[in-house]
């Protein structure tokens, strides 16, 4: 049973997506599939639903701003009115779907549910679900604020019409969307066919499930861009590089258990710590050893060759600050090219340099409540318009319970959660928004540690 049901609140799903994305197809599916829920629909593009349902209500987008000098938020007046009237027929339905126009900004819709005290009591915003036309989204993703915001706000994204694009195009699109919104669940669909439990009662705004969304989204910014696992024989190997965009590159070479992705993954966390150590500078001609030390290769010489000394044959992982392709870096053993058996990139594709991004912060330790209060107050006051969504779990000094929170723009909701008990205390939060400065957010947050 979810929180909404426990509190006798009606869950609400906000459905967004550009015209032609398959939003109405999805809505029709939701209305006709056998899930046992009686659904009321507030639709902006009235008359599109092919289902006979007297709980379908048309809405005219009507946005107004509330501002007290410090907090500014926009809400949907039409929704407040319609939902207010709808709730007088509370016994007729168990779920509400709000369909927005293709060009709608989901911000005011989401803020409406945070803003109105009575709606907070009676309704529970369950999720923002966005339907994306996998073939045509490329026409909008770069130049439409609405398309980007619909993606950024979403808890659930349907990549629809997958039959019209190749697997490679889909992977590219999914990576792009993931770089904008690292927290959303993404499903690939044809004709918006998706299991109903992926869309209804997903708990995207449920504080109890605030961080259940997807473990992937907590992936931090790594200090390295690439790692590869090599099968190396004993002896001296050679790492050869060409001129690249940077004068230095930090690297670490560590032994790993086997030539697998799992072994590489197991090395990631220890090597993050290695990368926080002081670096040992190494000029061309010097020797790299699998010592677990952070080595800074000086890349200013004419000939960029480094020896790699291996005493015991086996699996070794090389972590590099920059992608080796930027320097055409290659490893040779006895004059033969040695290729990595497995490799992994640690940065999203920055080809598009999206202005809409996610910043995830995960750090152990306790927070000073006063410092956190000051920081987050200032952050929301100055950057709240650019922060679309935020959510997280915090470890507050002196508090036995976890603190969970989430917010939309400048509005937020937070409360103590279950006790930490014997669990290691940590902080894990994510911001999704426009023009987010990762270093500033991370630095600001870490300065709140007690």
């Amino acid at each position: 049973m979810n929180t909404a049901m426990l509190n006798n609140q009606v869950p609400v799903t906000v459905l967004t997506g550009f015209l032609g994305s398959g939003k109405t197809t999805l809505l029709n599916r939701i209305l006709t599939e056998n899930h046992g829920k009686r659904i009321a629909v507030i639709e902006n593009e009235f008359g599109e639903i092919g289902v006979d349902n007297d709980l379908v209500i048309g809405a005219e987008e009507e946005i107004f701003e509330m501002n007290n000098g410090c907090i500014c938020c926009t809400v949907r007046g039409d929704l407040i009115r319609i939902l207010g009237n709808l709730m007088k027929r509370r016994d007729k339905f168990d779920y509400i779907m709000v369909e927005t126009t293709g060009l709608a900004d989901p911000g005011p819709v989401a803020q409406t549910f945070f803003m109105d005290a009575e709606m907070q009591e009676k309704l529970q915003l369950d999720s923002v679900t966005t339907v994306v036309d996998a073939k045509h989204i490329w026409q909008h993703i770069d130049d439409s604020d609405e398309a980007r915001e619909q993606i950024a706000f979403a808890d659930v994204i349907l990549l629809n019409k997958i039959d019209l694009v190749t697997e490679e195009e889909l992977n590219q699109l999914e990576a792009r969307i993931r770089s904008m919104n690292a927290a959303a669940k993404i499903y690939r669909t044809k004709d918006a066919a998706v299991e109903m439990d992926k869309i209804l009662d997903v708990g995207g705004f449920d504080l109890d499930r605030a961080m259940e969304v997807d473990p992937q989204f907590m992936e931090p910014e790594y200090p390295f861009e690439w790692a590869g696992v090599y099968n190396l024989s004993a002896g001296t190997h050679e790492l050869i590089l060409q001129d690249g965009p940077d004068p230095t590159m930090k690297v670490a070479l560590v032994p790993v258990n086997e030539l697998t992705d799992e072994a590489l993954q197991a090395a990631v966390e220890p090597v993050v710590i290695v990368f926080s150590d002081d670096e040992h500078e190494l000029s061309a001609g010097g020797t790299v050893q699998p010592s677990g030390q952070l080595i800074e290769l000086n890349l200013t010489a004419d000939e960029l060759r480094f020896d790699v000394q291996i005493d015991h044959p086996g699996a070794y992982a090389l972590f590099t600050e920059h992608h080796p392709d930027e320097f055409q870096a290659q490893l040779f053993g006895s004059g033969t090219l040695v290729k990595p058996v497995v490799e992994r990139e640690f940065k999203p594709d920055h080809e598009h340099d999206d202005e809409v991004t996610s910043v995830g912060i995960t750090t152990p330790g306790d927070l000073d409540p006063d410092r956190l209060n000051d920081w987050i107050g200032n952050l929301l006051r100055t950057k709240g318009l650019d922060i679309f969504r935020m959510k997280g779990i915090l470890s507050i000094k002196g508090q036995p319970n976890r603190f969970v929170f989430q917010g939309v723009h400048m509005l937020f909701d937070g409360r103590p959660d279950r006790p930490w008990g014997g669990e290691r205390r940590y902080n894990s939060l994510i911001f999704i928004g426009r023009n987010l400065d990762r270093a500033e957010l991370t630095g600001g947050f870490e300065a709140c540690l007690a």
Partner: protein
Amino acid sequence: MLNFFNSQKESDPQQLGQVKSWVSQAFDLSEDVSVMVTQLQCTEEGCPPVETVIAIMKTPGKPRQYKIHKPLAEVEQTDIVSLTAG
């Protein structure tokens, strides 16, 4: 100052209903007029930490907004009546 640890989202439903009913009476609103009541926190020093904002949505368009510089729990009928004078 903003209080992150008390986001003021929990409003007493009874007080909320009472305030809405005072608003309807004071402004002589019919039953189908929506009234929104919310509390906004202020993050700047010198501002009241929490204020109650009331929006009356009589007709589609721009709603009338009023502010009372105290939390919802402390709002009294006289505060609402005084809004009608403004």
